[in-house]
């Protein structure tokens, strides 16, 4: 198992290098000179040149890429153009907020998705099943940012129950978390339902019933664990979607997270921040998927024995 984890971590290196290369190249070909927006039109050529040197904007493509990678290896992600802070510092300030938001969204999605998926499967073709499946189809199709706006309209503007922006207490996480998690909750519900339906037909469920177990135990002990195996993979993929979706939700609810930081950075041509942000999100996405794969092996003994 450790060997497997080590191999997977090793395989991350080329992927991350690819991400760095891709984002670096995209930022390289982005039109416009950041120096213009930083110094304005009246700056002297000397001042401009000095700033270019300071920000590492001189030199050709390969030279700059090489320098960037070398500095990354030393833990230096570059300097934020607008605040002149280290990019790593800015990410350290914003990333925890994004993680908080995404974790709440995942928790929301898993709790609701699993519950509704299971109920729906147990009562297949009932009214509850039909309602849950219709809602989940709408949930999958609902743009998260629109959902965020509707929630804000209802709970902040009309009912005045929850704050519309800021990120200083738990109540601030609820609305953005739900808005972000709605899509995932819906697709987890659908996955859980079809997984459960598949499992409930299996012979070992009959075996469990023939043992005299109560229906509740049959479902929770025997069916659920088997049905969860494919769902776990979905949860991993959903986490990636959520990290991306955070970009939108953070903008709506004015949450100082990585997503909002990056959107602002793109608008102001603050490339080091964009590069750092994409890199951190790609890294956490890959790590989450690794954790999910390990979890997968933990739940499914058939997979576990492959790694031995």
């Amino acid at each position: 198992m450790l060997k497997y984890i080590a191999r997977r971590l090793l395989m991350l290196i080329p992927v991350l290098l690819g991400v760095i290369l891709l984002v670096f190249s995209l930022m390289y070909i982005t039109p416009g000179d950041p120096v213009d927006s930083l110094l304005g039109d009246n700056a002297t050529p000397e001042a401009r040149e000095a700033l270019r040197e300071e920000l590492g904007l001189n030199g050709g493509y390969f030279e700059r890429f090489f320098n960037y990678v070398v500095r990354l290896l030393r833990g230096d992600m570059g300097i934020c153009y607008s605040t002149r802070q280290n990019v790593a510092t800015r990410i350290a300030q914003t990333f925890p907020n994004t993680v908080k938001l995404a974790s709440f969204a995942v928790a929301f999605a898993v709790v609701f998705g699993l519950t509704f998926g299971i109920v729906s499967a147990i009562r297949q073709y009932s009214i509850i099943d039909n309602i849950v499946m219709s809602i989940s189809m709408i949930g999958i199709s609902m743009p998260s940012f629109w959902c965020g706006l509707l929630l804000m309209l209802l709970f902040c503007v009309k009912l005045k129950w929850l704050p519309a922006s800021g990120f200083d207490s738990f109540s601030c996480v609820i609305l953005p978390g739900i808005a972000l998690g709605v899509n995932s909750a819906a697709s987890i519900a659908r996955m859980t339902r079809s997984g459960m339906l598949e499992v409930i037909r299996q012979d070992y469920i009959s075996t469990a019933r023939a043992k005299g177990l109560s229906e509740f135990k049959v479902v929770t002990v025997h069916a659920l664990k088997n049905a969860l195996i494919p769902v776990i993979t979905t949860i991993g993929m959903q986490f990636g979607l959520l990290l991306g979706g955070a970009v939108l939700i953070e903008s709506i609810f004015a949450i100082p997270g990585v997503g909002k930081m990056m959107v602002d950075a793109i608008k102001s041509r603050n490339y080091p921040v964009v590069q750092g942000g994409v890199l951190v999100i790609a890294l956490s996405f890959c790590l989450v998927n690794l954790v999910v794969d390990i979890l997968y092996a933990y739940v499914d003994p058939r997979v576990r024995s492959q790694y031995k």
Partner: protein
Amino acid sequence: MSAISTKPNVPKKHSKLQETWRRFSKNGRAVVGLCIVIMLVLCAVLAPIISPYEPNAQDPRNRLQGPSADHWFGTDELGRDILSRIIYGARISMSVGLIAICISLIGGVTLGAIAGYYGGTIDNIIMRCMDVLLSIPTILLNISIVAALGSGLQNVMIAIGVSSIPGYCRIVRASILSLRDQDFVEASRAAGANDFFLITRHILPNCLAPLIVQATLKIGAAILSCASMSFLGLGIVPPTAEWGSMLSTGRDFLRDAPHVCIFPGLAIMAAVFSMNLVGDGLRDALDPKLKD
């Protein structure tokens, strides 16, 4: 044995199409989805005829009016008719959906075919590139590409197209790997068919079903991506009538004129919803085995 005679499925093409349609049309939800899709396409095509107002005609005296007989969906902050803007917005969304999917289909199928058919180093390189694309959440990738290319309809299409290449690439590669060594392909190769002929005539038709399903579902996703980018102000920029950017400007008036936000959002949802229904229906109809 001639190359033609080894072709699988071809004589039954018509009946298979009819069979698929029969199964599809029996699926109530899929038919509802198809109706919404057709309606949206009609809106897009007939926009100048059916929309009650010019999408950009401003009317400063009627700003932020709620729904009324004159303006069914109300007016926005410049007094523009929201219904007309939504109808025109369908043009943007539908064309982004279609063209982005074409870009990713062409790219994904080509790369997947090369990777699967030739294997070895080239396969490795292509698939690692796909891993890189997959490891960046789609929205972020879209935003980064649009940032590099600049905003605008064409670049939005390219961004969405490129970022959804990996899905198709994987489908095509997987089915080529499973078909490459099968008898009918071997036979055709023995008969002297070249690689291009083999791939286009024998292998691709066999992965058509999952490709069609994936493409339909991805049209919905593309419409959503386009709206998301515009919402962030990085996609299609005002004053062009686009659902996402309408939502974005409507945000500022959420308190007093919520309809400015509600209707464009409903339009996005209807488009994505209908594409999902059609995609699910197609999957069930094309491959009854997969039905739950």
